[in-house]
């Protein structure tokens, strides 16, 4: 197990290093127009420069704040509404058309509207993150609860469990892996949400950095933003995976999903 894990790590590192080298070579040879592309070294230089000026820390903090507030609120709301939908058929039928409709709506179309309503700043950006994260969490929570194991519910009934106990001891724990899968989808969508929200109007943030760099034909600055988003994505997904392994060890064994 340990050997396989470290083997996987080595291969992953080799892959990343090779891609980095390829990036550097491409940037110095056939993609050498600084308006459109920048070699890795230039991107890292730019990153150091932005860090030294203090701008990068501000951008990271702003984007992180928008993401984390939106994500937490959306998770609470998504799990809550999912639970409500799973516990009452009537309420589910009231809510369902809205969920289907809003889930299908391209949120990019909603982002400018939210900026219009809430102004340029934290509120609008949090709202965009909230909207894109809430639906995968809600839908996964609901389907996890709707597909409760009837056999296990019968076990609980056999021991004299009431409805609340059946929910808290059988249905909810059984739905947890689904909920975490929803959160993982939410992370990916939420990070995209931050960028899109900031592109539609902002004064700071990594999306803002990408926006400004693009307007100034500063390819290196643009790549700094993209690279940091990619790293954030890897980091958060890895955190969710650790949580997943802890709460559903019998599923984590099925292999990485």
């Amino acid at each position, binding site marked *: 197990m340990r050997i396989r894990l470290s083997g996987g790590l080595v291969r992953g590192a080799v892959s990343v290093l090779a891609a980095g080298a390829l990036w550097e070579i491409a940037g110095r040879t056939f993609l050498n127009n600084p308006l459109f592309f920048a070699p890795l070294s230039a991107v890292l230089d730019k990153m150091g420069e932005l860090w030294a000026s203090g701008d990068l820390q501000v951008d990271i903090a702003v984007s992180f704040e928008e993401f984390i507030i939106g994500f937490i609120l959306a998770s609470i709301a998504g799990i809550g509404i999912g639970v409500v939908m799973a516990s009452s058929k009537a309420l589910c039928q009231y809510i369902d058309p809205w969920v289907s409709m809003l889930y299908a709506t391209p949120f990019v179309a909603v982002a400018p509207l939210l900026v219009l309503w809430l102004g340029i700043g934290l509120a609008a950006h949090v709202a965009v993150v909230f909207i894109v994260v809430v639906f995968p969490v809600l839908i996964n929570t609901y389907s996890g609860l709707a597909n409760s194991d009837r056999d296990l519910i*019968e076990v609980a009934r056999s021991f004299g469990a009431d409805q609340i106990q059946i929910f808290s001891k059988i249905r909810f*724990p059984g739905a947890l892996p689904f909920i975490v899968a929803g959160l993982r989808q939410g992370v990916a969508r939420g990070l995209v949400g931050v960028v899109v929200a900031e592109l539609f109007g902002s004064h700071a943030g990594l999306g803002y950095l990408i926006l400004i760099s693009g307007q100034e034909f500063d390819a290196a600055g643009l790549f700094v933003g993209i690279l940091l988003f990619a790293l954030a994505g890897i980091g958060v997904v890895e955190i969710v995976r650790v949580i997943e392994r802890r709460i559903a060890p019998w599923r984590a064994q099925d292999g990485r999903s």
Partner: protein
Amino acid sequence: MTTAVMPSGDAKLEVRNLGKSYMKDDRGIEVLRDVCFSIADGEFVSIVGASGCGKTTLLRLLDGLIPPSSGAIYLDGRPIEGPGYGRALVFQQDRLLPWRNVLSNVGFGPEIQRRNGKAERERAARYVDLVGLRGFERHYPHELSGGMRQRVNLARALNAEPEVLLLDEPFASLDAQTREIMQAELLRITAEAKKTAIFVTHQIDEAVYLSDRVLVFTVRPGRLKEEVKIDLPRPRQLAVKRTPEFVSYTDHIWQLIEQEVREAIGLEAREAAALHA
């Protein structure tokens, strides 16, 4: 025939004129008809019959998971109205909660009864020990073999401290060798814990080996066809299965069931034909 009969008093469990029907695809199916028997305290009784004789339905009725269509069941003279105290069901598939370790699965019953004290935790550990799983308390079900999971299933039921243990073909999914061992273990455990047990199976030798009495059921609608008292000395070793007395019991029960099995096969064929018509 269907006049209400009051429980006779000294029986642990009394089944009176029990009937069960349900609807399936707009057709009424009568699963059990006018079943009467009683079980004494500490007795081990097996129920055998061809598939479709309503064995599992009977256990679910005894557990209180489903209500009878007619008749009644009395535990210590009181009618059974729902699941809960006094009985515990050992399910055919182990049905362990995959997110709980062995100790926590075994502790499930008392937890549902909102008894979570130190005494309960110690008792759960004792039952884990009794079924021979000491050292596996922190293991999860997916880390255990089929036989071990079935032991946890049994310990979970025992830990609810039932007076009557209901077992629904608990060893059906185990391989032949593991099943033999589990049978011997079950005898040891029920004797040690002094439990009344009702054991549903379609394995005749298993029923004879374990039981004080074997109730043979007819096919649908399930009725009591004959009860066979098993006069083999206890404690029983697995070697008892090779004695002539044992073999004559199994032969006798097999003859009772054979006709039923043939009818059950015919019934299934007719139902399949009706379904495809």
